[in-house]
Structure formats: structure tokens, C-alpha cells
């Protein structure tokens, strides 16, 4: 019991620190990568290659004046940044990030809390994040903030459904919602991104919407809502929303890694996922996991600086008229396929099983990309239907 408590506390502190430092560096990465994409250099003055820029930003935000709008609901206004900050960090707790670490007192699982309901926990806390944004918009007593908050709630609720649906397929294949089991199943043979490519595609789109990143950053929408829900926030409270957004990105990337890209699994080898555990294996798998997460974070930044923002009706149309039916249909097809392969043919999950499903995905992708995408996905604006 003592061992469990001590190891948990150490893991919490380490994971918290790593995420906070990672988030700080991520803000720098975002600014530098966007600069490179625009043929600029980006912040490179503070420290070597601008590495101390996040520290300078943090210092600035700590020292800036805190403002409180006269008409704001004080309690909720102060509570809202924390409400969006806490769930963003909590979700990371159930994600396994390396193989167990052997110590003289026993193996330490490299996950803060290996919950049996891991994935459901993530969905639950992921939806809590919207409260911070809605409360911020409401408590600011500012019509633009309120609009931002409303948009956030509508958007997150709409895309949560598609997100949940797209992951049902993963759970069907893994047969478990405990994330360490999901990783173990993928480590044994093939990553789920191959048998469930389209689910991954739906998931990544929904994840972008869930984390309020472009092309789905309607709650902020500088141009129309002057930064939306956090217009009235200053100094560290404003910073907290940013930390929350970036932690959400980290968690979403970690989730994509875990559900579709084999978590900490090193591809093409099996020595890394079989006992006996060693510190070397822990370090290597941790490195692999970080590499994958960083890759997804890069995709986040990459997409943000490529795509313009959706219009609000396009966002809703995409969520409800495209993503949700697609996810539902996909789950039906995949469930049927798994039932046929597993129950009728008696196959178990392995290379053959995964390749059969991959073929099915390719077949399904053809109508998706060559029929549905011919102006039918987002061009369905109100104006066109009346015309």
C-alpha cells in the first residue's frame, strides 16, 4: 500500500511536470513552426533558438494586471479557468506511456492510474472541459464571450458523439476499455490504424473539434468574436485557458497514439512488450511514445496553419449530417465484419484479421473520398439548398 501511494505520488508529480514543460515548449513550437510555414523565423531571441521564450511569456503573464469586469459573476469568473484547466490535465492520468519499470519493491506501471474504465473516464473528463469554456463565456457578461461559450458547448457536444462512435470500433477490436489492454492488443500484432483507418480518420477530425483547434476554433474566432470566451481574461487566468488548450492537445495526441498507433509499442519488434521488464525497455518505449505524441502535435500545428476556419453552419452540418452518420454506418459495417471474421470464420486478432479489415477500409474509403467528398461534405450551406 505504501509502495502504491509513494509510486503514485511520484508518477503524478513527474507526469504533471512533464506535461507543463511540454505545454510550454509546445507554445514555442507552435509559434516557430507557424513562422517557418510563413517563411519567417519566429521567436528566436530569448535563449538559444528561443527556448526560453515560454519562460519569458510565463513571467509576463504572472506579472500582468489581473482584470475583473465590473458586471462579471465573480465566483464563476474566477472558477472558469480552473474548470477548463483541471479536466485537461486529469485526462492524461489513464494513458499508459511506457512498459512497467522494475524497482526493488516491485514493478511500477507506467500509467498514473490504470483504471479498468480507462477510455470511458477519458470521454467523461473530455466532456467536462466544455464547462470551463461555457462558464467563462457566461461569467464574463460580455455578448461575444457568451457567443463563444455557446459555440463551444454546441461544437463539443456535436463532435463528442462522432468521437465516441469512431472509437467504438477500437473497443470492439480490443475487447476492453482499459487502455493498457488496448495497447497490449496492438503490441501483439498490428496497430489499429490499419484495420480501422477510417475510424482513425473520423477520430482525428473529431479530436480537432474537441480541442477547439483550427479549422474548428469557432469558440475563439478572433475575427468575429474577438477571442470569444476568454476576451475578458487577463494575465495568468488567460494563460490557464491556453495551458488547458495545449494540454488538451497533448492528451488528444496521446489518445490517438494509444488507440490507433500502438501506444508505447516499438513497431516491428516484440522484445519491447514482453516481460522481463527492464529500465532500458521503459526508457525506449517512453521515447517511442513521446515521438508519436510529438508527431501528432506537429500535425495539429500543421493543420492549424494550413486551413481556414469553418463557418458555424458548416461546422454543425459537418458534425451532424456527415460525421455522425458516417461513424454510425462505419461502426455497423466494422461490427458486422468483425462478427463474420471472429464468429463465423473463427479467426482471432492477428495479421490476417487486420489485413482483411484493412482491405474493407480501403473499399469503404473509395466512395468516401471520391463520391462524398465531391462537394457534398462541407459545401452543404443554407444558401445552396435554397438556390
Amino acid at each position: 500500500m505504501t509502495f502504491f501511494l509513494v509510486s503514485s505520488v511520484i508518477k503524478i508529480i513527474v507526469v504533471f511536470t512533464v506535461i507543463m514543460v511540454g505545454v510550454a515548449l509546445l507554445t514555442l513550437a507552435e509559434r516557430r513552426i507557424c513562422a517557418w510555414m510563413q517563411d519567417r523565423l519566429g521567436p528566436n531571441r530569448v535563449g538559444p533558438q528561443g527556448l526560453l521564450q515560454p519562460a519569458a511569456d510565463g513571467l509576463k503573464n504572472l506579472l500582468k494586471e489581473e482584470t475583473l469586469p465590473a458586471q462579471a459573476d465573480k465566483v464563476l469568473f474566477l472558477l472558469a479557468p480552473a474548470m477548463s484547466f483541471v479536466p485537461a490535465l486529469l485526462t492524461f492520468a489513464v494513458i499508459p506511456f511506457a512498459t512497467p519499470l522494475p524497482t526493488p519493491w516491485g514493478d511500477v506501471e507506467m500509467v498514473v492510474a490504470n483504471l479498468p474504465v480507462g477510455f470511458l473516464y477519458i470521454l467523461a473528463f473530455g466532456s467536462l472541459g466544455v464547462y470551463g469554456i461555457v462558464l467563462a463565456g457566461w461569467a464574463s457578461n460580455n455578448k461575444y464571450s457568451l457567443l463563444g461559450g455557446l459555440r463551444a458547448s454546441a461544437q463539443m457536444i456535436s463532435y463528442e458523439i462522432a468521437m465516441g462512435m469512431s472509437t467504438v470500433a477500437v473497443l470492439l477490436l480490443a475487447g476492453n476499455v482499459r487502455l493498457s489492454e488496448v495497447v497490449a492488443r496492438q503490441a501483439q500484432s498490428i496497430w489499429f490504424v490499419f484495420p480501422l483507418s477510417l475510424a482513425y480518420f473520423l477520430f482525428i477530425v473529431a479530436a480537432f473539434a474537441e480541442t477547439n483547434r483550427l479549422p474548428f476554433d469557432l469558440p475563439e474566432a478572433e475575427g468575429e468574436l474577438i477571442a470569444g470566451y476568454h476576451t475578458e481574461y487577463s494575465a495568468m487566468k488567460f494563460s490557464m485557458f491556453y495551458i488547458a488548450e495545449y494540454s488538451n492537445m497533448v492528451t488528444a495526441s496521446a489518445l490517438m497514439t494509444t488507440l490507433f498507433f500502438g501506444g508505447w509499442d516499438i513497431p516491428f519488434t516484440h522484445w519491447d512488450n514482453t516481460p522481463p521488464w527492464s529500465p532500458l525497455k521503459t526508457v525506449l518505449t517512453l521515447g517511442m511514445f513521446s515521438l508519436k505524441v510529438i508527431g501528432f502535435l506537429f500535425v495539429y500545428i500543421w493543420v492549424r496553419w494550413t486551413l481556414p476556419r469553418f463557418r458555424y453552419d458548416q461546422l454543425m452540418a459537418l458534425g451532424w449530417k456527415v460525421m455522425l452518420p458516417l461513424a454510425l454506418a462505419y461502426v455497423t459495417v466494422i461490427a458486422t465484419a468483425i462478427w463474420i471474421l471472429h464468429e463465423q470464420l473463427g479467426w482471432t486478432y492477428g495479421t490476417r484479421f487486420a489485413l482483411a479489415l484493412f482491405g474493407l477500409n480501403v473499399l469503404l474509403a473509395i466512395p468516401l473520398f471520391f463520391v462524398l467528398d465531391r462537394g457534398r461534405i462541407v459545401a452543404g450551406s443554407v444558401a445552396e439548398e435554397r438556390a
Partner: protein
Amino acid sequence: MAIGIKVMKRPGGQASYLRATLKGMALTFSHLWRPKVTMQYPEEKSSKDWTLSPRWRGTHRMLTDEQGRAKCVACGLCPQICPANCIKLVPGEDEHGNRYPLIYEIDEFRCVFCGYCQEVCPEEAIHVGVHYENAEYSRDRFVYDLERLCAQTHPVSTLWDPSDPKGE
């Protein structure tokens, strides 16, 4: 639909979001590796793509003769032509009857940098300079006196020549 709202006909059949997205991402990715246009200012003040024009009209400079005296003969043309009225000139005369400025001050805050003073000067004494780094800690430091105008070392403007408009 309300009256008078223009409805855009959007292309349906050939429009695509996914392929357009991928194309756009390929473009932004290729830009990651391209040469950057940023000039790192304090270290790098001009590059092959950009230098300050020789016609730039910045803060003034008074040219001096071989003995280090200002070339100015206090004729009074520059305060006369100055549209911003920023030049203060008090003429003096020595025992040989040579005129020289007792006081020559230019208020760089009032100056509009038209360059008329340089154009009108018969002795080619006062010039506008090819120079732009003028920060000071107090406002009164922006009234340049004669000593300071003579001490400037930056290049002087060539101004625009109507007979040679492209500077050839």
C-alpha cells in the same frame, strides 16, 4: 431568403475538401524548408534584397570644411523654405565680414523630412541623412544643435533628381 442578398453559386461536382486539405498541407510543409525572409534587425541591417534607399531622408547632418567649421554661411534660406518651421538660425559675422551661424538648431520632432533645406542650401552645408536610428531618452534631446549636426557621420541623402528620375 431576404431580398437583395447575393447567393453565390458554388461548384458542386468538382469541389473537394479532403483533397484540397491535403494539397494545402503539402504546400505549408514545403514552406517549412524554404529560405526565410526575416532580416535579423540589430545584427543585420541590410541584405541583398533590401537596403536603405540612397534617397532616404532621415535626420540632418551639417557638412564641415577642412578646418572643421560648418559650411553654413547663415544665408537664411533653409528656415525660409522649411514648411514645418523647425530650423532656428541666428546669423553672426566675423571681423572679415564672413557670415556664420551663431545658433543653428533643428527640432527633429517638428521636421517633416521634406529635404527642402538640402535642396535650397547654396553651400551644400545642411543635408538630410540616410539614417533612421534616432532613439533618445528625453524629448529635448531631439533638438539638434550645430555641434551635434556637425558631429553626425552617417551618409547624406542624394535626394530625387527630376532630370534623372530613376537614379541612373
